[in-house]
């Protein structure tokens, strides 16, 4: 049981978190942020374990992890 919050404005859509997620529940959003990047979003809140892998891999430190 966990949750992540992504500061979408800070995200550059690099996809490193998507690759790091063991549950494969992060994807790029269909919309863009003000910088023009498609930000990462959590696709399945219930499946998130709060493992923090996405946080560890995020170069822009825009993910908060809750457990």
């Amino acid at each position, binding site marked *: 049981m966990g949750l992540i919050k992504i500061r979408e404005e800070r995200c*550059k859509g690099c996809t*490193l978190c998507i690759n790091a997620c063991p549950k494969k529940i992060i994807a790029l959003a269909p919309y863009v942020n003000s910088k023009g990047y498609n930000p990462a979003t959590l696709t399945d809140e219930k499946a998130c374990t*709060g493992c923090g892998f996405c946080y560890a*891999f*995020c*170069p822009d430190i825009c993910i*908060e*992890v809750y457990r």
Partner: protein
Amino acid sequence: MDKVSSFPKTLVDVPMHYCPGCTHGIIHRLVAEVIEEMEIAFKTVGIASVGCSCFCYDYFNFDVVASAHGRAPATATGVKRVHPECLVFTYQGDGDLAAIGTAEIIHAAVRGEKISVIFVNNGIYGMTGGQMAPTTLPEMKATTSPYGRSTALTGYPIKMTEMLALQDGCVYAERTKISSVATINKTKKAIRKSFELQIAGKGFSVVEILSTCPTNWGMEPLESIKWMEENLETYYPVGLIKDEKEVK
């Protein structure tokens, strides 16, 4: 639910200028987290060099001196000699540390200067636009080696950390990489060890971190991590190069 991971207090909460997928941001966070966990931000002085990471003074939430290309170890020496109680580290890329700053880094190690060196190696000049670095692999393309690096023309990649480890003044040298959660954790441990050795009054230490440059390598971030492991790492094997236990 509790917040278990979030933006460290030892970083300034501003967007970073790095390209999408550049691992500098991860390495900045690791350095900042170690400083936060060791509760030493009040006595830390970072030394910025020149290259993509030269603006790290905008991000680290503690004192920073910005030095010139390659000269960070000399500036760190000046700061450390005046404030031996402080944690002083340099943050340098391979263009900076392995080319123009070769003399400064080697002699800081030779002196056993009590500083930590965070050496980010992606085998290319980033900020100036993807030129060949001394760390660029043979046959690797760069804007100043458009046909691939010719060893006949420019020689071979330089192994800085091995060279630094040879110096008696160097107490700890390790090469890590940013490629998985496990290697990120390993990198953090190495940074912590380097900082702890410095606080304990031991000598010079260096953590070389194999990194990527998606923009100048012309790859997607994920692809560049794979390329790094399949190419850069074969030339620069990760692992412990010199442990403080080897130091007499």
